């Protein structure tokens, strides 16, 4: 969902530039809850104030809500249909790719290339393969950023 939001807001509508969008993405990703909703709330406020907030919040939740209700009402057991299972097999790897794209573009844009990319890779392995909580990652990155970049300035 995030690459799609970025494409609309930055590339098509030019409401924000890419750097500001990435800053906002970093902030909203560190808040609890569904990232797409967090991002919608922040972008709505930033671009259109309270009215924008109402528009983006409902806009981001309502389609999911309606579609899921229809599926729950009409298509009980759809997930066992052979055609659904087949389609699903290709959709899953494609959606993993869609998750990777914003990670790589944020990394590139923030100068995390080459060897510096090892830090986010280590964080990712830590979360994926051990029970390390994302909350600690967020706290450590914030404190680390303040200490590391703050010290360098002096």
């Amino acid at each position, binding site marked *: *969902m995030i*690459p*799609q939001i970025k*494409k609309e807001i930055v590339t098509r509508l030019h409401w924000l530039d890419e750097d500001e969008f990435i800053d906002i*993405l*970093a*902030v909203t*990703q*560190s808040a*609890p*809850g*569904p*990232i*797409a*909703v*967090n991002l919608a*709330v*922040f972008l709505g*406020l930033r671009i259109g104030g309270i009215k924008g907030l109402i528009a983006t*919040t409902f806009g*981001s*939740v309502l389609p*999911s809500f309606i*579609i*899921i*209700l229809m599926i*729950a009402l009409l298509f009980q057991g759809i*997930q066992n249909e052979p055609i659904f*299972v*087949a389609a*699903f*097999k*290709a*959709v*899953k*790897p*494609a*959606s*993993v*790719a869609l*998750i*990777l*794209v914003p990670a*790589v573009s*944020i990394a590139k844009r923030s100068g*995390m290339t080459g060897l510096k990319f090892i830090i*986010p890779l280590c*964080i*990712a392995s830590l*979360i994926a*393969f051990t029970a390390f909580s*994302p909350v600690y*990652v*967020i706290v450590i*990155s*914030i404190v680390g*950023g*303040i200490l590391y*970049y703050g010290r360098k*300035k002096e």
Partner: protein
Amino acid sequence: MIFWQLFYTFFIIGLFSFGGGYGMLPLIQNEVVVHWNWISISKFADIVAVSQVTPGPIAVNSATYIGYTVTGSIWESVCATTGVCLPSLIVVILLYVFLQKFKESVWVKNALKGLKIGVVGLVLAAALVLMTPENFVDYKSWLICLISFIACYKFDVSAITLIAMSVVIGIFLY
């Protein structure tokens, strides 16, 4: 009062789950399957599968679906969905106000720089978690993943187009 229980449970899930949809799923499972016993684990797996392929945030999708499944009432869906979204609304508004006020602060700027590294790690983790044998069944899966990545990253193909294409490819291949 199942209305209140659903709302409260999903509010807590929304408030304490970090790392987005895939980070939220274990918490939802724990509350809904283990703690409250509202649905079985196999029903939960079905709901996750449907939520993944349906457009929209996965946490919102599963909240809506679980809300409906528990009692078969649309109002339960509304309760669960509102519950899972409300903490986002409150927390993000507070964050926005805070950041507007301290935008120029060096501390905030440095914190953001550090945060970006952490967030890249979080997003990569979400992808890593999904690279399981159940999701990547054979070499074709890896190929689809690689091609989709290149198409989206280098050639700016939209997510909607990619998902639609992979639906067709999936039906064709499997």
